[in-house]
């Protein structure tokens, strides 16, 4: 009788454990969508009104393309690429290092786990969580390139980042068997390096061939501040991103049926540790940025930067240390953004500073403050050298592919919109609706005549064409990358 009761209890417990696992990641994934709502608002607000909707369309499409491409090859790369490009003997073996026959089988798009399957209550939810991580990397990058990148170029580069580059980095450094983990003891629990460093440096790699927005730099090289049209929307967007990051960070823990959470490396951890340092890092980041700028844009960016700064050691730091680490991140952001601007690189939202720089700082902070902390069985302890090598590897993994693909797209005239489109406004040229129709000039011209079309006829000159022509003549061609023109 006792055995029967025990068996029934075990069966009920097993069923609840499985269902809890699904429920937990389901809601983490749902919460992560707030990241994208936030980035959407943030980037639309940071755009000038003539580009606002085009910025939003870019975010929406990034989301849409990331999901099927991550299904197609992203998940496979994570499961199979943890040793790439090193073979069993430690030498380079590009094809042999991909674990196609082992773990990689689970990521092949036509495998039984990659669809409805009553025997598999884990693959779908883990795939979904990782897909939303991938979407996050694309959103991080998308803000940097607003107002001048072609939509098609953005889709191609975002897919490269979200479904190839970052997930390869995750397989190396955010996987219990990843070669960076096994060889260097690399520790990046909440993905400061594999998500933020990679995405930030990927943005940098695209920004170089993309070039600055028209009007960003003067002929003497000094920079202008091209303010977005809606700072309140931007700030609310940043707050939404923070909300979404609670889902992101929650999904960085693995629900263990034995009752003990483990982090991505299989080391015991828990949500309490995560939340201490998430909040303390965020507070530190805000205060650090406030100290330097007193600008709400940078303060909210500092909040994000503070969270990323503590992310690698989120389950290790003493919370006041997390505050100080986050504060340093918040202080670094405005200086890094200024430095990047002085280099002639126009990062419209400070993505390189917030994600790239704070990502590196977050990875290094673990090496500085947690050196010697033991890894899982057979894994080296945390070391400052291992973290430094890891940060450099991830930065290069983001930067080099971006620079290559960006340069190729630019060579064929596929990277940047024509100057005329940029001056006219991407919305006017590309979007069949308007962000603020009540304020459009053509509305004034048609006031009182409700039978006329709500948009100017396609062949009618733009109301402000003379102004735009004059501005186009004043553009310093040395500050704009040459965009191959096709004969019109």
């Amino acid at each position: 009788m006792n055995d029967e009761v025990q068996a029934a209890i075990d069966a009920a417990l097993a069923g609840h454990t499985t269902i809890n696992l699904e429920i937990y990641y389901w809601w983490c994934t749902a919460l992560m969508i707030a990241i994208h709502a936030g980035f959407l608002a943030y980037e639309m607000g940071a755009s000038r009104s003539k580009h606002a909707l085009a910025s939003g369309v870019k975010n929406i499409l990034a989301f849409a393309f990331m999901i099927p491409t991550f299904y197609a090859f992203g998940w496979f790369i994570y499961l199979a690429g943890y040793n790439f490009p090193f073979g069993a003997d430690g030498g380079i073996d590009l094809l042999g290092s991909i674990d196609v026959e082992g773990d990689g089988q689970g990521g092949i798009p036509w495998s039984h786990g990659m669809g409805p399957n009553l025997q598999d209550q884990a693959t779908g939810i883990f795939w979904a969580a990782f897909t939303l991580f991938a979407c996050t990397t694309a959103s991080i990058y998308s803000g940097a390139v607003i107002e001048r990148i072609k939509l098609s170029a953005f889709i191609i580069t975002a897919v490269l980042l979200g479904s190839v580059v970052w997930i390869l980095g995750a397989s190396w450094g955010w996987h219990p068997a990843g070669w960076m983990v096994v060889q260097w003891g690399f520790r990046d629990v909440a993905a400061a390096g594999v998500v933020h460093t990679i995405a930030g440096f990927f943005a940098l790699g695209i920004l170089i061939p993309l070039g600055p927005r028209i009007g960003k730099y003067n002929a003497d090289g000094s920079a202008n501040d091209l303010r977005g049209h809606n700072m309140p929307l931007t700030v609310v967007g940043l707050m939404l991103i923070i909300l979404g990051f609670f889902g992101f960070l929650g999904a960085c823990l693995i629900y263990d049926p034995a009752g003990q959470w483990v982090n991505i490396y299989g080391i015991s951890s828990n949500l309490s540790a995560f939340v201490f340092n998430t909040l303390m890092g965020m507070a530190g980041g805000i205060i650090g940025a406030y100290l330097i700028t007193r600008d709400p844009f940078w303060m909210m960016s500092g909040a994000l930067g503070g969270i990323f700064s503590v992310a690698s050691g989120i389950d290790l730091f003493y919370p006041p240390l997390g505050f100080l680490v986050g504060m340093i991140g918040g202080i670094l952001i405005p200086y890094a953004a200024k430095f990047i601007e002085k280099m002639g690189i126009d990062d419209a939202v400070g993505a390189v500073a917030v994600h790239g720089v704070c990502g590196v700082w977050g990875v290094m902070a673990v090496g500085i403050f947690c050196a010697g902390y033991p890894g899982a069985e057979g894994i080296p302890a945390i070391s400052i050298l291992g973290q430094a090598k890891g940060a450099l590897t991830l930065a290069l993994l983001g930067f080099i592919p971006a620079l290559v693909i960006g340069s190729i797209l630019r060579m064929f005239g596929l990277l940047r919109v024509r100057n005329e489109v940029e001056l006219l406004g991407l919305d006017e040229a590309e979007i069949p609706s308007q962000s603020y129709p009540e304020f459009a000039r053509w509305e004034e011209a048609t006031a009182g005549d409700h039978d006329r079309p709500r948009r100017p006829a396609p062949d009618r000159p733009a109301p402000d064409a003379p102004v735009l022509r004059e501005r186009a003549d004043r553009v310093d061609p040395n500050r704009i990358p040459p965009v191959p023109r096709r004969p019109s």
Partner: protein
Amino acid sequence: MNSSPVESFEGAAAIFTFADNPGVVQGIFWAMCAAMVFVVLVSMIHEVRIGKKAARRLRR
């Protein structure tokens, strides 16, 4: 692994609709990929056209 009664039905453990027909599954998969490539190509062509159109508007 779970307590679903469906598990006990022969052949019903995997309810992936096309589980026994990998050719169809792969065909659908490649159709999805082709659709994405098609949309990107259409987007590229569209961008070239609107670029020329914007240039014409500014020249007037």
